[in-house]
Each structure stands twice: as C-alpha cells, then as structure tokens.
C-alpha cells in the first residue's frame, strides 16, 4: 500500500494503533492512508517529539502515526507525523518553525491532499524554547519563556524578553 503522499516506506517505526498497520504481501509494514487530517512532513527526526509537545499532541485521543528516520530525497533522513481528523490554526503550526523550519503541512480530505502549506517564522514565541543564559530568571523560577525571533543572514536567533540575551537556535536542535 502506498499512502496518500505517495511515500512508500519500508519500515514504519511506530504506530499507536496496531490495527492500522497492515501487512503488505511482501511483509513490509505500511501505514494506512489518512482519510481526513493533517500530515506534517520533513520534520528533522530528532525533533519529532518536540513537535508533538509543541502541538500538545501528547494527550491527543485521535489516531497519530509517527515515522522517524525515513528516507528523504531532499534531506536524507526525515520524520513525519500524521494526525487523523485534526486540523490546526496557522498560529499553532507556525510555532513549529523553530524546530522544523522546512516542514511541509499537508491537509488531507477524503484521502487527497487538498492543501500544502509552508511554515512562517512567528515574530514572538512563548513557552517553547529555553533561554541559554544560565542566570536568566526563566531558568530558576516558574516563568514561561518569551522570545523575539531575529533573522540574520538566514540564521534565526532568539532574543529573550527577560534577560535580553540572545539564544542561538542551533542550541535548540
């Protein structure tokens, strides 16, 4: 079976619901296609769990399929998340730009990709990254982090709203 994005994966590491993993004739495990929902593609594999956290999917009741270290022509390895029957606001999805700047969002309706979206880096982000300054108040007291994103020569860095220090986005990966 080939899923609705046309990816044919030889190994799918995990699925939350086994009945949706089907045994192919040549014994490959393939994930079932989504009927309706959202597919987040081109996520750096190591940040898959950060993405789940940022989108608050840890307590999600809908079916979620996760792929890690899948082959990608563009990126070598990638991660993918499929969430059944869930659609997101742009503001929610754009929060992912920090950990998955190249991610593609595919909206699936009736087994077809009806819309593809790219992420836009938000101007301000709250409660996601940690400030790299060990003396920042946010690392000592229960204070939600807040940053302004700054772009310089295609490099993103974060200016802490509290200690006014710059956190290098590379530290987040």
């Amino acid at each position, binding site marked *: 079976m080939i899923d609705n994005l046309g990816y044919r994966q030889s190994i799918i590491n995990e699925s939350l619901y086994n009945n949706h993993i089907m045994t192919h004739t040549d014994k490959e495990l393939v994930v079932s296609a989504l009927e309706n929902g959202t597919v987040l593609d081109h996520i750096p594999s190591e940040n898959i769990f950060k993405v789940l956290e940022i989108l608050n999917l840890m307590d999600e009741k809908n079916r979620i399929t996760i792929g890690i270290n899948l082959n990608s022509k563009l990126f070598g390895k990638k991660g993918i998340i499929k969430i059944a029957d869930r659609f997101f606001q742009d503001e929610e999805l754009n929060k992912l730009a920090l950990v998955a700047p190249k991610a593609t969002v595919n909206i699936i309706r009736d087994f077809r990709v009806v819309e593809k979206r790219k992420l836009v880096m938000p101007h301000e982000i709250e409660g996601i990254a940690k400030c790299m300054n060990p003396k920042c*108040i946010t690392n*000592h007291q229960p204070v939600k982090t807040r940053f302004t994103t700054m772009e310089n020569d295609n490099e993103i860095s974060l200016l802490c709203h509290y200690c006014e220090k710059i956190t290098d986005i590379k530290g987040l990966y």
Partner: protein
Amino acid sequence: MKKSLISIRDFTKDEILHVLEVAREFEQNRVQKILEGKVIACIFFEPSTRTRLSFETAVNRLGAKVIGFSDATNTSVSKGETLKDTIKMVSNYVDMIIMRHPLEGSSRYASEVASVPVVNAGDGANQHPSQTLLDLYSIKQTQGRLEDLTINMVGDLKYGRTTHSLLQAMSFFNPRFIFTAPEELKMPVEYKKFLDEKHIGYSETNSLEEHLDDCDILYMTRVQQERFTDPMEYEKVKDVYRLEASMLGNVKQNMKILHPLPRVNEIDQDVDETPYAYYFKQAENGLYVRMAIIAYLLGYR
C-alpha cells in the same frame, strides 16, 4: 497606566532628555516633598551600597517613606517563596517597587506581576538603567551636550552591563566609541552589530595609552569578580589596566573620567586630585537622577 523602568530601552530619547532636565531641577533644589504620603519599597536581593542608599535618599528627599530589605536571607525568600509571590505581596503595600536581584530578567518579570511601577536597580549582569541615566547626566553636565562626543570605554566590556546600557542610550546622540579591553573581555558582537546597524563608528584596542588623548569621556570600569564563572579567567585579567595621573599629560582639556564605582586598582588615587576626575561627583548625581526617575514614573514630573 503604570510605567516601569526596567531597561534603558524602555525610554525614548525624549523621555531620557526629560528625566535629565528634571534631575537638573532637583540638583538645584534637592528637597522637594512632592511625594508626601507615598510608600516605596526598596527590595534588594543582592548587596549594594551606592545604589540602595542613593535610591533610599532620593525617596526620603521626595517626602515618601521607604520600606524594604537589603538582604534576602531574613525574608520569606529564604523559605523558598517565589519572586512572583514576593512581588505580588509587596505591590499590595506600596506605590512603587525599586528592586535589585541577581537573576537576569527578574525585574522585567516583576514588572509584569506587580500592580505598581517597578524600577530596576540592577538585574544581574543585565540592566541597570538608573546608572545609565546618571552617566548620561554626568556626560551632559561636564560636556554641556550629549551630541557628537567620543567615549572611550575601558575594562570589562564583556560582562560590564553599565557599558552596554550606556552604549545603547548614547546611540541617540551620534557618538563615536573606543573600546579598550583585553581579548577576554571585549565588547560582545551583538552590541557591535547594534552600532553597525545605526552607522555609529567605533574602534577597538587593548592598550589603555592609545586613546587617552583623543576622547571626551574616559569611562573606566572595574573587572567584576562576581560576574565570572571561571576563577582562572578572572585572575588573568583582574589587574589589566591602571590609570595614573602621569598618563594624563596630553588629554583634552574637557576630558572627564567616569567610573560607576566601586573602583579597586583601575584608577590610582593620585588621579582623584586631577581636574579630570569626576567619579565622585558622578555618584552624587545618582541622587538627583533617581529622584527624577521616581517623580517621573509616578507622574509628578
């Protein structure tokens, strides 16, 4: 709406000039009981003499009363109370909070939790805006203007928050900077980038002698042991510069030496007697500037 002063960047150029003007008025008449009946909290979670005493004097001279502490060990903070709870509680009692805290960003956070204006009297190595304003006041008083001056900053330009804030504030007035620092304590890249964006010129050197004779303000700083996480790094640089009276033979006549104090070895005592020394008067100016900040934020000036 309540207005706080957390970072020098919270003030516009006009507000800076206004506060300096009000400070001048207070210097001419230093007892003006315009805040009779007000209570202001000075809460210092970290030791300080100059800043705390001058803030408390400023409050008293304005006719308000001071409550607070100068050492957090005798308070509920030592029982594990969060900063949020301390600030919530204190802001129910008073009309303004003046606060110093070792953690960076603590004052910004406090201003978001408090129902009254907050004045940042130093948050770790981050900001100390009343120091910046008194530095500006001292520059203006000694040079007669703020525009088109050459400022030579000397010493710890990496951890020294006073130099960072002064740089940001002076950027309104078309300055030229000289950064005199050893390799380990150079001005951080983000501040140089800030100047580049504003097309403000600067040069860097590690020699104290090199630019003594072509600056209007010599802004000396102490290498602060408490800012170093690595004691070895501190030992290497602690006595790197020492200004002596004999080095001042060819300086500009209008040149003045500023220092946020306390000094240790970086300015020899024999400099105190020269006409260029201004650091004690600078510390006195702190009183008028702090009176001006309090009066302005509470809407009385």
